[in-house]
């Protein structure tokens, strides 16, 4: 071996990562992506619901007049539209969440995994029962 070859000069390799620029609007390119983003956006409407809930509690604590005032505010067309959109998003959250739960929850009966449809079906049944109980409480028993 010649010493010449050992003295060859090496320069460190600095590879640049090849990263394709992703458009800010990547989620508009496919329905699956859009559905994913819509599911994530449902969280904004959940937060909005909590704000209206807090407003209701505050109005209740302030008395009859404040409560009536809040009911009036809820009749404002803009607020009604916002609540209708919120309702759609919140239901979308429930549906996607139950679908997700069916994937995540693994229940075994007699060594066999309970099929996803039964898990999500159970969630929907529970949803119905819970909703009925809450409606019964709110509607005055």
């Amino acid at each position: 071996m010649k010493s010449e070859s050992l003295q060859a000069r090496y320069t460190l390799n600095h590879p640049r990562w090849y990263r394709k620029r992703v458009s800010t609007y990547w989620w508009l390119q496919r329905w699956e992506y859009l559905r994913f983003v819509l599911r994530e956006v449902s969280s904004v409407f959940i937060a909005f619901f909590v704000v209206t809930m807090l407003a209701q509690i505050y109005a209740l604590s302030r008395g009859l007049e404040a409560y009536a005032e809040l009911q009036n505010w809820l009749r404002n067309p803009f607020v009604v539209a916002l609540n209708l959109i919120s309702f759609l998003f919140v239901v979308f959250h429930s549906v996607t969440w139950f679908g997700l739960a069916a994937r995540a929850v693994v229940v075994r009966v007699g060594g066999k995994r309970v099929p996803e449809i039964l898990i999500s079906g159970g969630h929907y049944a529970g949803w119905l029962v819970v909703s009925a109980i809450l409606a019964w409480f709110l509607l005055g028993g």
Partner: protein
Amino acid sequence: MDAKPSHLRLEPLLWILFSAGGVVAAFLIPVHLFLSNLAFPLGWLKAPDYAHMSALIAHPLVRLYLFVLCAVPLFHSAHRIRYTLYDGLQIKHLNEVIAVGCYGGAIIGTLAAGYLLWNIH
């Protein structure tokens, strides 16, 4: 990684709150939103009067329930909004600001709920 170990320990808790909030929101919010924000004010269903609502909220268990209904979904929302801004709009350089804003908002909402429900009547 070892620069901010506190973040690593906080993440599981935030995820548990996200998950719990998702469950609470999925099961409970649709019926509340439909009745209290649409059906009652718009007269689709006969709205409960003020006295009935006051009687309901006077019960400690109802107030505890309302606290959970408000607080836990807020952390669910905070977590999702944080990651939607992070991935969706690719605002990665503002990660700290967004995280503080989202979870901070959830904490403020939780404190407001606690304060209001604790001080009723």
